[in-house]
């Protein structure tokens, strides 16, 4: 198992390199520079500015310089926030995004998995159709529609929950987590239902029933472990989606997360900030994918012993 993790991490290095190069080229190809401003800037001042951020060097030299810095863990200064380094901005934005993603995942898993398992217990009955149609609504409802609706109902009319901000007022993490998590709760519900039905049709479930075990014991002890493997395998790509989804939720709920930084940086051509956040997101997602794959392998004893992922 350990060997598997190491090989996967080693494979991640070229991936990140590819990510950096693509983003670097894309960013420098974008029209409009970081220093174009509405107030007229005399040419010589512009030159002095670009020199300070060595934008006047040839592109490949900048690329090499940047790679050198990244290896040392320094993501360079931010253009938009003079005096602030990208490391610092990411550090200030990361906790909010990570927390939001975690809570959204928690919401998705708890609601999604329990709804899916609940529906799989008695397929094609009301107990199955109700959660599944709710899941369908979850999938069809874009987050930027669901968020404002929730704010309107719970935030303003019922005054239960603050409408925005993160961490200042108690309870202000509920709505963003639910908004981001619902789409994935719906998807996980369908996945876990499919997984459970697949397992419940296996022979060893019939053996367990023939042994006189109670229905709920069969579900939790025998069926759950196998049934939820597709859900765990889904967590990796789901995290990548969550990160994307957080852009919108952060704008709706004014959450000081990495997503908002990224969108601002893209609009302001803050090259180092864009590169910094992209690398960070990519590493986060790769690590998360690795974790979810390892859990999926660890759950299956046959694979665990082979010590090799069979993908």
């Amino acid at each position: 198992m350990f060997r598997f993790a190491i090989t996967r991490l080693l494979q991640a290095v070229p991936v990140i390199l590819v990510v950096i190069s693509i983003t670097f080229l894309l960013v420098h190809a974008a029209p409009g520079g970081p220093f174009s401003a509405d107030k007229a800037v005399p040419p010589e001042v512009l030159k002095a500015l670009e020199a300070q951020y060595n934008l006047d060097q040839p592109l490949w030299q900048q690329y090499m310089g940047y790679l050198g810095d990244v290896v040392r863990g320094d993501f360079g200064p931010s253009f938009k926030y003079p005096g602030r380094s990208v490391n610092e901005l990411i550090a200030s934005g990361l906790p909010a995004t990570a927390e939001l993603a975690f809570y959204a995942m928690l919401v998705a898993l708890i609601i999604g998995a329990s709804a899916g398992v609940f529906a799989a217990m008695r397929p094609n009955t009301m107990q199955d159709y109700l959660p599944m149609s709710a899941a369908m609504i979850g999938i069809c409802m874009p987050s930027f529609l669901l968020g404002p609706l929730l704010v309107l109902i719970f935030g303003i009319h019922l005054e239960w929950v603050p409408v925005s901000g993160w961490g200042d007022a108690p309870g202000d993490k509920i709505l963003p987590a639910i908004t981001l998590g619902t789409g994935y709760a719906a998807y996980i519900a369908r996945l876990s239902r499919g997984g459970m039905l697949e397992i419940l049709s296996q022979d060893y479930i019939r053996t367990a029933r023939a042994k006189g075990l109670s229905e709920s014991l069969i579900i939790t002890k025998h069926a759950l472990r196998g049934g939820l493997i597709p859900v765990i395998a889904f967590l990796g790509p789901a995290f990548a989606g969550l990160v994307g989804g957080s852009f919108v939720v952060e704008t709706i709920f004014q959450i000081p997360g990495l997503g908002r930084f990224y969108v601002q940086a893209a609009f302001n051509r803050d090259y180092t900030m864009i590169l910094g956040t992209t690398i960070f997101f990519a590493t986060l997602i790769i690590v998360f994918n690795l974790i979810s794959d390892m859990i999926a392998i660890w759950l299956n004893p046959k694979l665990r012993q082979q010590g090799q992922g069979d993908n």
Partner: protein
Amino acid sequence: MDASIEKIDEAGSSLWQDAWVKLRKNRLAICGLVVLLLLGLVSLLTPWIAPYGYEEQNLILGASPPSAEHWLGTDIFGRDMLTRIMYGGRVSLTVGLIATAVALMIGVLWGATSGFVGGRVDAVMMRLVDILYALPFMIFIVLLMVVFGRNIFLLFFAIGAVEWLTMARIVRGQVMTLRKQEFVEAAYSLGLSQWTIIRRHIIPNTLGPVIVYTTLTIPSVMLLEAFLSFLGLGIQPPQSSWGLLISYGVETMEEFPWLLIFPGLTLSITLFALNFLGDGLRDALDPRTSKD
């Protein structure tokens, strides 16, 4: 042997006819299909049947609730919402269809080759898919849009490039199982070339799951487009799409609720219809059920 060639009468019912019979029994899937056909028709005929001009403003009227002339009310410029939704539908559905087609093409080709060739090539191709899965695609799409401006074709390509991964995996899985089936081995023992085996034996048998997955990709693609439009990176005025209409509607949710409700409703109904149809097709085309 002079046995006359009897007329071959009893036509067999192919798996497709079998699937159609089963699908017809599934009420939800059928009304999903009907809704989709209706929407397709409406968006095709929009230029002729739209009650008002696409850009026709009526500033004095401004945002008015549903009334006799404007069934679904008007937006802040006094433009008829029904017309806007129809034109928006054209864009959203085309984005959905074309992006899915892009995803379908790349996905099927990639999955089939990797599944069929197997061995080292398969390992490398699938490793690449896993890596691409790990990439923060949302970021690349944002960058692509920002860098190259927001023309529609780039949107199709960008969304398609995100969605083909899962398609590739499904097709690969399907091809891998088929390759081990005995009728493929029989085809090998006949001495057929690899390409004829793929064309005659593999592809027809993968169509089932591919069709099912396509019907499920379209809604997620439409959602992605709506999502990008909300961030201001998707469809740009004067064109509009349901996603854009919804994001405008959200801003004036309290004062002019109908600007949000009608486009939101249309998008949801379309997505519902697609999902129900997708589920119906999956049950109808599932080889397990058709084998008994």
